[in-house]
């Protein structure tokens, strides 16, 4: 909040000197450093979730296989989904929010830098909390949407995993809401002069819509999770059928959150693709306002379709018909976007660099995933597909073929901006090829398997069903994806060992403001806050359009804005310990509550210690001067 305080212990005063090393990272409030930490942590969890997927596929490769026990299998598919959704895709999107949004709107940082650091520390520790079940009595095992009453001990496996599920996701929810609020305020209030809403780059727009969804959707799941945690820890009756508790309440609350969540996962990727396609087609984005309004409409409609996940529970014809219609409506703005992307490429001089390959892959695979999605928007057809591998195929086409391809496109596109090094192009192409082939081989056959009646979440199947061939193909596909991911990791290590280059400020001939400043980006981002005169205003400084609509380069004068040798004295917010303390404290208290039913006294003690740490951190934070130089 405010006010100076001379009463802080000396070791907690705002550090000023750490710029590198472990303390430099722990106390940083710089959006770029936080973004990099987000990125590496999320990639780590992505690899973990991928490993789980490979084990799942290995188990299913042959009929009657017994690589893992049924119990472990339940934990694997649950944790695979949770890890990929909450610990990989969402944080990877937030990585780009952190790295790119302030640069695209011409700001020096986000609106609340310390809150931003807090979001990261909660995410990291919450991710570990969610995974702590693996070593403490079993990980979550009721599926990622954890339908009641399977989540209660007497109906489920009786393991402790669902404690880590409820508290882990609660803690992660705090991180998401804090991040959502932060980016909401940043985009509303930190734009450079002249950057009106309709001049904002599409990625920033999608970050804006995603933030609104985060801020509004996370509260609903938070309440559902609190009810679940209370049921499990304090013995309330919310989801206990014997006491009249209604399992449908959980399903509704979960999907009220769950469907906006789907758009939280996909909209950032759509934003990335909307940046990459025009850049590598050497054309402005086709139909910018249509893309924006489609995004807004998708985000808005995300609130009106949730029950299409529940067609088979018996809501009655009126409810089913209503939700079917609203769901089908969403195909319209999505289709508009796809036509706009194709229109952007149409007639462009396309440069097939790795980011472009991934973006084209996104468009292609997302069309398939979108169409299979429309096919279960109709209740009668959904009755057939519900809970089969057809759904698994659909969701992987939109989340892997969609979100992950978009994210990889962004990684290749923006990597040079923050490292001053280009990811290797040959390895990039191999990475893309392996991922594209592996993805279609792995998830394509699942359409057939699902239509053939293979249910989701089964641990194994008999040879007599005739599912073995396509399962084997699918498993081989998953190994190819794994191989592609290894190529990516090799590429990252290979690139990190290269010399830093100074000529990478604008390697792709970009359109948005982040390409107008040096790579890697200086701590203060912009030496002078830019003035924005239109959409793609950085492009306009490089090209003019003649009467026929052809682009001609404007000769660049001797202006060397991109030289970073002169000293500039720009005042940046100081470092702080408190986000770290507050964030870790919150997760520690969550951990205490999660182990409470196993170890009463220890759990309670840990929880209290965590809560005290959170309060100490939050209090210190409020009384810490927002700016180290205010300190008297």
């Amino acid at each position: 909040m405010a006010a100076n305080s001379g009463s802080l212990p000396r070791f907690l005063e705002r550090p000023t000197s750490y710029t590198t090393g472990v303390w430099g990272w722990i106390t940083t409030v710089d959006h770029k450093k936080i973004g990099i930490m987000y990125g590496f942590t999320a990639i780590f969890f992505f690899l973990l979730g991928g490993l789980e997927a490979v084990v799942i596929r290995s188990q299913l490769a042959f009929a009657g296989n017994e690589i893992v026990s049924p119990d472990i299998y339940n934990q694997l598919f649950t944790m695979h989904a949770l890890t990929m959704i909450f610990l990989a895709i969402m944080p990877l999107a937030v990585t780009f929010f952190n790295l790119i949004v302030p640069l695209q709107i011409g700001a020096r940082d986000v609106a609340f830098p310390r809150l931003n650091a807090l979001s990261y520390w909660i995410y990291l520790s919450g991710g570990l909390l969610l995974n702590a079940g693996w070593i403490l009595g079993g990980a979550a095992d009721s599926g990622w949407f954890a339908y009641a009453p399977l989540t209660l001990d007497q109906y489920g496996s009786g393991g402790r995993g669902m404690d880590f599920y409820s508290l882990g996701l609660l803690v992660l929810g705090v991180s998401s809401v804090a991040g959502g609020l932060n980016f909401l305020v940043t985009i509303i209030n930190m734009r450079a002069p002249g950057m009106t809403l309709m001049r904002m780059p599409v990625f920033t727009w999608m970050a804006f819509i995603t933030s609104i969804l985060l801020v509004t959707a996370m509260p609903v799941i938070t309440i559902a999770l609190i009810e679940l945690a209370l049921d499990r820890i304090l013995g309330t009756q919310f989801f206990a059928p014997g006491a009249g508790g209604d399992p449908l309440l959980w399903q509704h609350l979960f999907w009220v959150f769950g469907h906006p969540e789907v758009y939280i996962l996909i909209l950032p990727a759509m934003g990335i693709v909307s940046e990459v396609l025009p850049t590598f087609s050497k054309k402005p984005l086709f139909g910018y306002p249509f893309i924006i309004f489609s995004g807004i409409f998708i985000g808005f409609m995300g609130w009106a379709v949730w029950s299409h996940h529940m067609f088979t529970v018996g809501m009655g014809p009126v409810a089913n018909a209503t939700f079917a219609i609203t769901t089908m409506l969403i195909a319209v703005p999505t289709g508009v976007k796809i036509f706009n992307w194709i229109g952007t490429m149409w007639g462009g001089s396309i440069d097939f660099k790795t980011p472009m390959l991934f973006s084209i892959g996104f468009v292609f695979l997302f069309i398939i995933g979108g169409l299979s999605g429309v096919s279960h928007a109709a209740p009668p057809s959904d009755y057939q597909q519900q809970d089969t591998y057809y759904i698994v195929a659909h969701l992987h086409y939109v989340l892997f073929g969609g979100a992950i391809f978009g994210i990889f496109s962004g990684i290749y596109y923006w990597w040079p901006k923050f490292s001053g090094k280009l990811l290797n192009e040959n390895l990039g192409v191999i990475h893309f090829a392996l991922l594209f082939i592996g993805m279609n081989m792995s998830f394509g056959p699942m359409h057939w398997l699902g239509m053939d009646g293979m249910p989701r979440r089964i641990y194994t199947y008999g040879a007599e069903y005739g599912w073995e061939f396509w399962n084997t193909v699918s498993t081989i596909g998953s190994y190819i994806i794994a191989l592609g991911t290894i190529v990516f990791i090799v590429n990252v290590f290979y690139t990190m060992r290269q010399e830093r280059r100074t000529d990478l400020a604008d390697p792709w001939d970009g359109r948005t403001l982040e390409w107008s400043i040096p790579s890697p980006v200086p701590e203060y981002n912009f030496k002078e806050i830019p003035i924005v005169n239109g959409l793609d205003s950085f492009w306009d400084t490089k090209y003019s359009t003649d009467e026929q609509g052809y682009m001609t380069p404007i000769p660049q004068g001797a202006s060397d804005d991109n030289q970073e040798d002169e000293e500039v004295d720009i005042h940046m917010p100081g470092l702080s310990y408190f986000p770290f303390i507050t964030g870790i404290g919150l997760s520690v208290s969550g951990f205490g509550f999660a182990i409470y039913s196993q170890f009463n006294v220890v759990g309670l003690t840990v929880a209290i210690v965590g809560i005290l740490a959170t309060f100490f951190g939050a209090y210190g934070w409020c009384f810490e001067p927002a700016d180290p130089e205010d300190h008297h």
Partner: protein
Amino acid sequence: MATEHHNTEHPSSTKYVVIALILSVVTAIEVAVVYVEALAAALIPILLLLSVGKFVVVVGYYMHLKFEHKLFTILFASGLILAIYVLCALMLLFGVFI
């Protein structure tokens, strides 16, 4: 532009006291209505109407929203409308209104 909002249209302390009196009276009416047998049939709409009135007065005057930049109204209203929408949709789906 909009930083000069303080103290300009701020209602005076007397006005705040008057508003508190009105709020108290409405609360008293709410409680009283509950005990009037003749109104039993229309009780829920009456109660909802009265509490919406209190809600609007507190938000508009005590939270000062009536005099503020419209962005604040947009932020608050979008959360509130979604909240009401979710509540009503769930009650409809669970057949509470039927």
